[in-house]
């Protein structure tokens, strides 16, 4: 059984890497799990499979994205906690939910509550430097979030485009922050320190501000462009895009922290960009092409810069 699982875990690795390193990985796995219980062996297998998946996805810990994700992870944990735990709390304070109303099923709210608790635990574990626990909590939190979103939106009376739009806005940034946590390699995540605590607090603040905007729920509705015009969003979007553009020279010089900041801020930037694009599409269709074009150009430039930077380091 273990041999079959080991073959599966090794099979996830890219063929070239498996040919070169497979025998050694299998040997170290065998030594590590000799006499170990099923639980310990299972965790070793999971870790080995995750290593293969990282390599397969280009997220090995020698890669720029993974290294940036390692630095951005505390921020992402903070932002996730505010997005899944603080935001619903604020929404309840502003507009209490009809928990006892038979017309409104409780299942999505329960799922949202589960996601909120898991997100809060995720952030707590991250701040305390318990990264294995952090990343084990992310997949169930993501499932709860997706389940809650689907259940909440399936009875939405609005047109399907609007439903998808709000679903993506609700899920998108939270899911991106979850992915950042999953993309961060374990060997780049150290114990809690001042940088990680500060980063988590920044994430918490950014998450509260932007996710409240995205769900139309909390006290910051004044930023909603459909009601108040695009100026507040432009003000919000400009620093995010500027930051991402400013990251280019940093990347070229190997300044990893700039890349981490850009990565951490990208879900928030995506929310602002989506709103602005939707607003401009409704008002002046031509202008709507500008923000996504700018974002796409920035993304391509970042990818090219990252690739150029990484090429000499790859082996």
């Amino acid at each position, binding site marked *: 059984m273990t041999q079959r699982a080991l073959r599966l875990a090794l099979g996830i690795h890219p063929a070239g890497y498996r040919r070169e*390193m497979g*025998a*050694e*990985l299998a*040997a*170290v*796995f*065998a*030594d*590590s799990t000799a006499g170990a219980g099923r639980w310990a062996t299972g*965790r*070793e297998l999971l*870790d*080995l*499979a*995750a*290593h*293969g998946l*990282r390599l397969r996805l280009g997220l*090995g*810990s*020698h890669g720029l994205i993974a*290294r940036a994700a*390692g630095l951005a992870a505390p921020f992402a944990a903070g932002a996730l906690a505010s997005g899944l735990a603080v935001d619903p709390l604020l929404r309840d304070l502003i507009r209490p939910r009809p928990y006892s109303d038979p017309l409104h099923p409780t299942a999505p709210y329960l799922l949202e509550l589960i996601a909120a608790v898991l997100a809060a635990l995720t952030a707590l574990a991250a701040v305390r430097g318990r990264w294995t626990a952090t990343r084990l909590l992310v997949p169930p939190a993501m499932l709860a979030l997706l389940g809650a979103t689907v259940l909440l939106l399936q009875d939405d009376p609005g047109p399907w485009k609007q439903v998808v739009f709000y679903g993506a806005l609700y899920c998108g940034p939270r899911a991106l922050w979850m992915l950042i946590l999953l993309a961060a*390699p*374990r*060997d*780049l*995540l*150290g*114990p809690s320190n001042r940088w990680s605590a500060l980063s988590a607090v920044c994430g918490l603040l950014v998450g509260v501000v932007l996710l409240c905007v995205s769900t139309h729920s909390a006290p910051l509705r004044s930023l909603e462009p459909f009601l108040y015009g695009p100026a507040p969003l432009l003000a919000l979007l400009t620093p995010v895009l500027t930051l991402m553009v400013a990251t280019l020279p940093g990347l070229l010089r190997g300044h990893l922290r700039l890349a981490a900041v850009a990565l951490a801020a990208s879900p928030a930037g995506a929310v602002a960009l989506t709103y602005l694009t939707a607003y401009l599409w409704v008002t002046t269709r031509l202008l709507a092409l500008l923000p996504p074009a700018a974002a796409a150009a920035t993304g391509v430039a970042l990818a090219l810069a990252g690739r150029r930077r990484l090429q000499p*380091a*790859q*082996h």
Partner: protein
Amino acid sequence: MQEPTLLLLTALADAPRHGYALLQEVATISGGRVKMRTGTLYGALDRLLGQGLIHVVGEEIVDGRARRTYALTHSGREILTAEAERLRTVAAEAERRLSMPRLRGAYST
């Protein structure tokens, strides 16, 4: 420098070692607090190889098992020396301050 990296470089500071020996050394150096797993170890080794901080000094088959031996490069040794010096300075300063009498009013509780 993150702790897993520091532990791995430290494990290689006195002698070249193969994968499983590194896992054991990391556990010993950290007093059993850090138990690195196989996938995490090889992720870190890939990165350290890419950064030129370690290199492979031998490949052999022992008891039918493949084994690469890793060692610090000159650059890896320099970085570990600098990190050890930094930690030593911080630790010395912490000990110096801890040995001083607490100043009245310098803390809030």
